[in-house]
């Protein structure tokens, strides 16, 4: 077992994780973070949902996407398994 771990550790994939996180971060930064009410909206939504379902604190994400002339408010709620 220990030997197996040793071989597994030789090639870490932390750089791949870093790259993926960066791509998401940078895309978010470049959109300018969205309107200023987004963080509060996200907290309020989370509270409402937690009244009914035991979701994690990071279960709700909100985003504003611009698509041509339209603005789309995108809501993502991850329910527990």
């Amino acid at each position, binding site marked *: 077992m220990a030997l197996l771990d040793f071989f597994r550790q*030789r*090639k*870490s*994939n*932390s*750089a*791949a994780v*870093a*790259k993926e*996180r*960066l*791509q998401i*971060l*940078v895309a978010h*930064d*470049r959109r300018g973070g969205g309107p200023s009410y987004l963080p509060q909206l996200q907290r309020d939504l989370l509270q409402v949902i937690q009244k009914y379902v035991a979701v994690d604190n990071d279960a709700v994400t909100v985003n504003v996407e611009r698509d041509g002339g339209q603005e789309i408010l995108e809501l993502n709620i991850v329910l527990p398994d």
Partner: protein
Amino acid sequence: MARIIVVTSGKGGVGKTTTSAAFAMGLAERGFRTVVIDFDVGLRNLDLIMGCERRVVYDFVNVIQGDANVGQALIKDKRSPNLFILPASQTRDKDALTVEGVGQVLEELGREFEFIVCDSPAGIERGATMAMYFADDAIVVTNPEVSSVRDSDRMIGILSSKSRRAEQGQEGIREFLLVTRYSPERVQRGEMLALEDVQEILSLDLIGVIPESSAVLNASNAGSPVILDRDSNAGKAYSDMVARYLGEDLPHRFLSVEKKGLFGRLFGG
């Protein structure tokens, strides 16, 4: 008219001052009259890396406030006749750097020098915005690491909007990516972002890759820009970077793990 180059980064401690010193020395060695200015008011590091800390009498802020003229504040480098240093002050506050004041000093220097290298502080506070405002070219120093790459990306956005060139509707600042503290060993082990990953995210012209090297600390201990350590990989990589800046087309070096031959392995070569 001198060309003004700002050495910048979002994140601190990534190698701006190391780069400013090496780059300015490299330009001077190639015969260009060069001045390197420390914009890090309050911290003052460049004079230490250049090894002229004991010769500082007047500084950048003294000149802006009229206590001294530029000629009195400039320190002549002892190694290259073409190189001068304008040090920052240690005590005064950052608000001393005004657009008019900095603009005037740069204009005056522009009559004497061919290249003006500005060592910027990290972040987007006054010293940094002043250093980038007047720039023609920017070197964005980045370590292969999440927070550094992210902050560089933000910096690139600011550079293209908050410069005099942008305000006056001129052609924008030329921006170059310099990756520093690169470790091919760690990249190979999957522990460090590879050069291609950094480039893919930042998509800027790559002007150089400086390997992680103990020569940099040795150089700073001695107060001698690392480009003068000609046998070191970091010194060579900086020298290549200067050549590329001046238009030469050189392949990037020190990107993969050096394979020692049997001979090297046996004798630790």
